[in-house]
């Protein structure tokens, strides 16, 4: 931590290796609203992928691209709404705005990643904010997943308009969501922690007619 960037900006590992009980943003929701297990009738299935590492990366694309490529091994999505994943599909970078990207990595990698990026970026003007505790990832899968989304988001989720490799920030019912399509079958919703219960209740309600199930 001798880099100048690190001195002027205080990084902080908010995660600990100690065996400490953690609660994902949906923990309360499971208790409050229950979590119907998927059945043969379920045309859509929801599952939370909790405790991932979420970083917001701000800066000019030209500034960031090299560092991201060097550190993460994937290139910054060049086009708006782009979503790029590594070969394993475990690490992703999503275009959020011309100078903002969302990086999601396996939980525990985020602090090291932040430090490596900071080191690689040196004195350049950029910002990295760790938001891992503030959001969670909810997956939707199944043939009715798109219909559930059509009930919920104003964005056009038709495959011709929302191919794999796309991600957008948009309106979800009365909150906002980052919606991504990492593969043909799977949709990802990045949800803010404090709105997670609302989103969960909404999905249960909107998915009711498709006998939505929750994988835990």
């Amino acid at each position, binding site marked *: 931590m001798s880099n100048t960037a690190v*001195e*002027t*900006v*205080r990084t*902080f*590992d*908010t*995660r*600990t290796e*100690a065996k*400490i*009980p*953690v*609660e*994902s*943003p949906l*923990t*309360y929701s499971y*208790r409050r609203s229950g979590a119907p297990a998927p059945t043969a*009738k379920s045309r859509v299935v929801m599952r939370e992928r909790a*405790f991932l590492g979420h970083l*917001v990366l*701000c*800066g000019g694309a030209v500034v960031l691209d090299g560092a991201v490529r060097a550190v993460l091994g994937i290139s910054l999505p060049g086009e708006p709404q782009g979503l790029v994943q590594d070969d394993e599909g475990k690490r992703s970078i999503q275009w959020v705005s011309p100078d903002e990207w969302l990086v999601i990595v396996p939980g525990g990698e985020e602090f090291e990643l932040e430090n490596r990026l900071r080191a690689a970026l040196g004195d350049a*003007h950029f*910002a990295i*904010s*760790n*938001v*891992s*505790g*503030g*959001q969670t990832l909810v997956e939707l899968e199944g043939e009715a997943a798109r*219909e559930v989304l*059509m*009930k*919920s*988001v*104003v*964005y*056009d989720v*038709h495959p*011709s*308009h929302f191919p794999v490799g796309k991600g957008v920030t948009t309106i979800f*019912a*009365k*909150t906002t969501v980052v919606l991504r399509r990492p593969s043909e079958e799977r949709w990802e919703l990045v949800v*803010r*922690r*404090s*709105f997670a*219960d*609302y989103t969960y*209740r*909404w999905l249960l*309600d*909107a998915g*009711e*007619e498709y*006998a939505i199930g929750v994988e835990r």
Partner: protein
Amino acid sequence: MSQPNAQENRLAQGGRIDRSRRLSFTFNGKTYQGHAGDTLASALLANGVDIVNRSFKYSRPRGIFAAGAEEPNALVQLGVSEAGQVPNVRATQQALYDGLTARSTNGWPNVQRDLMGLVGKLGGGFMPPGFYYKTFMAPASMWMTYEKVIRKGAGLGRSPLESDPDIYDHMHQHCDVLVVGAGPAGLAAALAAARSGARVIVADEQEEMGGTLLDSRELLDDKPAEQWVAETVEALSNMDNVTLLPRTTANGYHDHNFVTLHERRTEHLADTAPLKDGLRQVRSRLHRVRAGRVVLATGAHERPLVYGNNDVPGNMLAGAVSTYVRRYGVVPGNKLVLSVSNDHAYRAALDWVEAGRDVVAIADARANPDGELVEQARAKGIRIIAGAAVVEAKGDARVSAARIAKVDLQGFRVVGGAETLSCDTIASSGGYSPVIHLASHTGSRPTWNEELLGFVPNTVKGVAAAGGARGVYATGAVLADGAEAGLDAATEAGFSAASLGLPRVAERSDGAAVALYQVPHEKATLRAPKQFVDLQNDVTAAGIEVATREGFESIEHVKRYTAMGFGTDQGKLGNINGMAIAARVLGRSIPEVGTTVFRPNYTPVTFGAIVGRHCGELFDPERYTAMHQWHVEQGAAFEEVGQWMRPWYFPRKVNGKTETMHEAVARECLAVREKVGILDASTLGKIDIQGPDAREFLGRVYTNKWAKLAPGRVRYGLMCKDDGMVFDDGTTSCLGDNHFLMTTSTGGAATVLEWLEIWHQTEWPELDVYFNSVTDHWATMTITGPEARKLMEEVTTEVDLDKDSFKFMDWKEGKVAGVPARIFRISFTGELAYEINVQANYALHVWETLFAHGDKYGLTPYGTETMHVLRAEKGFIIAGQDTDGSVTPEDLGMHWAIGYDKPFSWIGKRALTRPDTSRENRKQMVGLKPKDPTVVLEEGAQIVLDPNHSIPMPMEGHVTSSYYSPTLASGFALAVVKGGHQKMGETVYLPMVDGQVHEAEIVSPIFLDPKGERQNV
């Protein structure tokens, strides 16, 4: 009267109903039979039910007049249970289902024998348009009594009185081409567009698609038209890029091709939605469609003729007769007289005769009718009276005869004597009005076409009308027009396709129609029997004439004065006739009188469908902190702040009795002042600010100085808008030279973030700084009170908590309960306090660990109410409670937080020197001490100097915050008072609603520990 099961008007064969499925239904308490495929209207007609309702103003008996959305009379109340009631359902659009239960919306004691009808008959003459404006004025005190009586007579159906058991939802749709209407034009358009590969949605309001082709006499490729419909619908439904939405009405066209479609998913099955495969289904669904291109294939509505007593049951639209005969196998009478201005309406007579019943005569207003259909009628031996029209219907509860006379259309008079022909049905047609509703929803004014005798739409970019909707009526031409519109739409949306092969339709030679709206009567309009223009609102030709005589010359005035077009049918049948009458009376042309524009909705839409899922607990999000479960388990009462559910107070059970809020808050307050309390402060907004210019930026948006705040230190800041008024406050910590963590008020988080962004992006992009919300990432808990350090020492590692190394307004990193934490020594209570930030996923563990260790120190959870009391004792403000957008930092007595000598003219600074902002005697923040310590002043109480002053009493200010302080053993308050800072020690008065006048002394707003020693230990 007809017997149940009789279906006396049902034909032995024909129609598209399923005769194998008999359905039983109840109307006005009587049970009848119908068939699957019937509408309620067709089933009622089949059973010979003449009177379905009573009219709004005159209580006249009314029957079914039309067969679709334009029906003005047949409005019924649907539903069995109280919660399942649906008011004002048009019988013509309601599919019949087994067990359907309906009643008339008006009529007392019933529609057959209606006492109000007597009033209408006797009193009708005294109720000209504007009747209400001209009477009930004396004495003034009586109006509220009169109004009660008037209101009782008003209204149609009734609202259910219990909550809706059904659910509704929305579907956000996007397509390249939206086709509204699945008649010949719509189907052709859809097929043409769909073949190009474009994403197509087809919405049609009826139970099945096909529109006029479903009752057409014409052959398409030498086959019945309905066969082409079936094939086309089948083809469309097999295409992946096509969404077919039957029972779906396009109700509103909004800007940029946003269209609302109301899909009724279960209303044809039952009054409340039945389960499907054991799962609830939505009763109706609103599709919010963003379309690349829109094709309006909405067809045309037939116009009735306006003649005497044209409202008596048995009067109908000519086209409706054909629809009932051909589509439902129902002949709505035995002896028909037809009164027409055009050829197309002759279909009614042909269909009637073919159904085996008697056509008495056709009165044709044209001197020499000679079209193909006319010849067919002649060939069938139907008597045609040329140059004539029905001038008056006879009959009371049902038409008994028609008076037919020769009419001089130019001179608007009857020529010669009238002939009275016995009949039970009079059908009329005065031509057709293109359905231009959607096209005019965004303000496009239609154009009158003298040849078509109708308004044709002027559409905006991206929208095209096709077929009847733009006055193209011949079936072959309609198909071609639709196909072309569909192809154009797809092409404009970026697709290409070959043109469509269309079915062959024999061309029919129709004679020219003649303009006829109101039929002249032997008597002048004001003396003639009532000639109804708007049946639902009981607007007559005489009413329109009186309105114009009184100076209501614009059609908008006429409509408003007479209420024409303000019914649930929005004048679909009456508006053009009304305009024509106004035009005639004023000696102008129809377009000179005005145009007719429509507003959404095309037909009424259930509130529930518009609301969708956004009701009940999903009406608005509730935001929870990571400790919410704990709060719930502890029985906290919650206060909502900007969608966050915050614990308000934690009532305990003491001796089996739950504490009141007052008791709980007193206990919580003392715990903090004497021992230690804990607050969930996670809801405060937190913004991560990084960049070399972060410090400069803070100096511009805060009123105070930031240039020298060192890493490891925290500072309070005040934010103003550029009008100098305070809008938020909070602490900001320097994490690194280029790195700050800003906190905002709970409700202000989003606003402040956007505030920072707008200044950065639009004014100071040269400043290198980024802002990110980290509100949800961190959970925040405040440990405060004299014992706070002891408790912290037990659970904290890697931090030196010694008062000299971890001072007030310092922050440090370490671990709390084994979890990495940032700890801030800031205090909103005036006590020793630590604000702990940990990653939210660990928060509950940290919280519970604190309690595991806190018991011996008397650790007490407290809520927002206690927080408010404690901060008010210290004179700390809550932005939005103690400020209201009209308070400057100086008004708050916060001169110390204003950096007047900062080099940059920070936001709000300039405005502070405006005459009104800098004047003395502004309302200033002070403390108020009630003379009686047991008094807790009301928040919002007004402050006066002379409580005996007459009303209006000059007010000096008001109480912004007020509480009982168990520490001070007294009520106390914060207030704003004119010139308050100079009025310390003065007495003011607070006159209350109940007549009491409280006395209070103006004091410093800092009630406790003015030197700040308690927080600094």
